[in-house]
């Protein structure tokens, strides 16, 4: 049986990759994908702990997260589309209307 620590290390690595991509990448879609990556890293820890403690609630959390992620993907992609339509770019550095 694979120890829980392995799952957790994998999840931490996935999460870190997600954060790094989020910070480094300029394309909005790539950033969006990195958010999905982080969400799934969290899902992995939930599942790992659920399996370790033999609790179902962890897996239920995962379903919730997936639902929210799906909703977020729909809304997020719509926002991205409208940004592209108005600004003709997906570079976050150029999306800076809030800059003081």
């Amino acid at each position: 049986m694979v120890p829980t620590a392995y799952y957790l290390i994998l999840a931490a690595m996935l999460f870190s990759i997600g954060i790094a991509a989020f910070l480094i990448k300029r394309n909005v879609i790539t950033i969006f994908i990195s958010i999905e990556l982080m969400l799934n890293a969290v899902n992995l820890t939930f599942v790992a702990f659920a399996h370790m403690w033999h609790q179902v609630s962890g897996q239920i959390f995962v379903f919730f997260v997936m639902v929210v992620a799906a909703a977020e993907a729909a809304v997020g992609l719509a926002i991205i589309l409208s940004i592209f339509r108005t600004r003709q770019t997906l570079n976050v550095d150029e999306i800076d209307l809030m800059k003081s």
Partner: protein
Amino acid sequence: MNPMPWSATFFIPLLPFAGFLINGTLGRRLPRVVVSTVALLFTALPAALVAWLWKTMCATGAPSSVESTIHPSGFDWINITGLHIDFAFAVDHLTLIMLAVVTGVGFIIHIYSVGYMAHEEGYWRFFAYLNLFMFFMSLLVLAANFLLLFVGWEGVGLCSYLLIGFYFKKYSAASAGKKAFIVNRIGDFGFLLAMFLLIVHFGSLDFKEIFSILAQNPEWQQQGAHFLPTIALLLLLGAAGKSAQIPLYIWLPDAMEGPTPVSALIHAATMVTAGVYMVARCHPLFNSSPLALTVVALVGAATAIFAASIGMVQHDIKRVLAYSTISQLGYMFLACGVGAYAAGIFHLLTHSFFKALLFLAAGSVIHALHGQQDMRWMGGLRTRTPLTFWTMSAGVFAIAGIPPFAGFFSKDEILYRTFTSPNPLHIVLWLVGLLTAGMTSFYMFRLWFKTFFGEPRFDESASLDLHGAAVHARSSSTLTLEADDQGGTMHSVHESSWIMLLPLVLLAILSVAGGWVGIPAALGGNNQIEHFLDPVFANGTAGEGIAAMTGHGLELVLAVISVLVALVGFYIAYVFYYEKPGTAAALAERNKAAYSLVKNKYWVDELYGAFLITPMLMFTRISELIVDHGLVDGSGAAAGATTRGLAWLTRKQISGNIRSYAGWLAIGAAAVIALMIFGNVLKGPL
């Protein structure tokens, strides 16, 4: 008649105040006729009220009655624990005389101003200020307590400032106004301290109450309670500020920058006598302290002779009169200092007549010469302005103390009372007074001869001369004349209009006859004014007793001496300035040091400048650097800089860059995790 007619006294100050409000708010838009009508009406009515008050009071309260003070019903003004002050007026015989001077002479000068100021800018402003002055001055003399008196006291000071600086576009006038105001503050500081001490020791500021407490506690005086001389001397400091006595006299000569009617009304007849009035009003306080009385007499005598000596060498006609005013006020203080308050008030009365007359006549001369004030450019005006000459002559003879003009009786009374006073210094004081009388006579006749006799000097082309140019510069701003008017019309010297001459005639009559109310018993009169004032100064007058002791012989001898001294003064002036006009200049040339000392007013202004003003300015400069720029400005700037620095730091966070927000978020999350993991290690369970 109304059973409470005394409430009418409230209208004496209120009417001029109404005039001030009307002219002060609407005057700019009103035609000049309306402005002068308002100003004259609202000063004539109080004068009529005073006349009626005088008549009623003489009918009801005979001078012999003790209860001669009238308290019109006032109302609560300040009512706190331990101190109660009414907004109340009191009318006694002293107040009546002062009111008569203020409203009567004030009204006459208002008439004159209509003519004198006719072509000036700011006509409405002038009359608004003048009416405001009348309001405060009548408030001052009517007040039944020190605080209300102080209100009037400050108010007339304000009006004096406003009117000295009436030509505020002229630098010298504006700074003269400031000088008067600031020097008066020093005196007012003394007055305020005296009031505080009175509250501490008497628990009241009401004249009647304080004096009755004083009378009930004779042991204070016997045990030499130190607060009585302190209060009296502080009051004297206040009086010295207002009445231009040593050491605070320096503002009055500069005050001549104001329009001439102002000099006549405020700086000769009424406001500057407020100090004398205050000393007379507080006579029980002064009587309770022989030290304070001696100081009053010394200050008065010193000021009298000091100012007279400066007046002898001045060339500006108004400055001669200003120093003369200071000198005459010194006489009044001398009288108060030897306990002869009635004589002081008598001199105040006659002085207000003849000095107002002299100023107005001088104004008429200046008017005739289109703003020329320097006596070196006058002369021979006797035939050109005959009425001014005759009226001014009445004033000159009155102030010089030639019988039977007004000044003779009052000045003689003061000298006589000084000579017979119990003060150990009385002979010295009398000699100083006598010498001053001679000097007064000399400088007044000097003015008289230089202005009205000899060759006319005014139509020489003075503008070529360097000094003349300076005079022209000054005169052209004194009267707002056109520049081309100066040279061309110097020849057309003319008599003033009737509206300026009428007040001159009225005051000339008063200057001749005004003294007859105080003809001493020695000369066949019965000194009515002294008896009139008896109820007020009941404790202070011991003149009758002295007269009974020494008989009338001494008084007659002293009168003859003072007349002789006046005649000597006249003769010297006659020789110097009429018979041999070069004599005075030659004498000045021979005694150069002494002449320049007096000519430069003993360098008192310069001494004050060097020893008081310069160190004070330096102190303020240093304080400005350390306190203002260092502490006050510094703390403000530091607070601003701190806020700005913090703002700069936080502003960096709001970059608008999404990834930097995310980065901060990640760092924050990492920090929280680190805390959760290592927090236990650092400080136990969180």
